[in-house]
């Protein structure tokens, strides 16, 4: 993978076809935006890793009432929401790369990418709902 595929004049003879150059953006049709978001979410989760581990440690051995009280506190809820958001996005992109690499049947690939989106959004939304419910104390 190389950035000079889309920027500036190619050095030496290019292997890209004129059609490929016109279509630009590559096989995923979204350029390098996913590549960049994969890095942003990765860095975010790395920064959040220690707080998240501390939160999980705080919950060990507690019953539901104790766990609910801790999970419902504002800073902890915010840290977990950030972590859930970053991980759902990160894993959605990561799994899409795997799908694009290994599934060559176009229809099956599109269905898989769709299911990947459904799964990632469902997990993120369900986890978010649980945390908001704990935070509101309903």
């Amino acid at each position, binding site marked *: 993978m190389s950035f000079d595929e889309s920027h500036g004049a190619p050095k030496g003879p290019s*292997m890209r*076809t004129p*059609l*490929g150059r016109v279509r630009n953006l590559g096989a995923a049709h979204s350029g390098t935006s996913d590549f960049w978001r994969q*890095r942003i979410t*990765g*860095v975010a*989760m*790395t920064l959040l*890793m220690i707080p998240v*581990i501390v939160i999980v*440690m705080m919950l*060990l*051995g507690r*019953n*539901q*009432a104790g*766990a*609910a009280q801790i*999970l419902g506190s504002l800073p902890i809820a915010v840290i*977990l929401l950030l972590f859930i958001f970053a*991980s*759902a996005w990160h*894993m959605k992109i*990561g*799994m899409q790369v*795997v799908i694009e690499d290994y599934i060559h049947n176009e229809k099956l690939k599109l269905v898989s990418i769709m299911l990947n989106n459904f799964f990632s959004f469902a*997990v993120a939304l*369900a*986890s978010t*709902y*649980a*945390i908001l*419910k*704990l935070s509101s104390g309903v």
Partner: protein
Amino acid sequence: MTARIDRPLSPHMQVYRWTLTMALSIVHRATGIALYAGTLLLAWWLIAAASGPAAYGHVQAFTGSIIGRLIVFGYTWALMHHMLSGIRHFVWDLGYGFKANEREALTWGALIGGIVLTILVWIIAYAIGGGR
């Protein structure tokens, strides 16, 4: 479609001699896929905490069982390894660590560091009462 041009094909990976960086590249992907599936456990745990004592009891019964502990231990390692292996990728993304000895060192670091961090996290977890 475009006219057929004889483009060079890259040889299939099985012709290459196995290297550490190659193996760990596959492990990075495998741990990523495992973590993807593992988010179900995380979501189940949070939903159970929001649902009530009975639902939370089921999660605790599972995570307290031998198989549950093995899965959570594996999940911990996958997370620690994937994180360190990802940091290794950040180093490469920034343009550093491409010399043969550097990339080997980074890869060994991710492999050993992941195992060490996993064991460390579990020792702390048991020390503060996760074994209950």
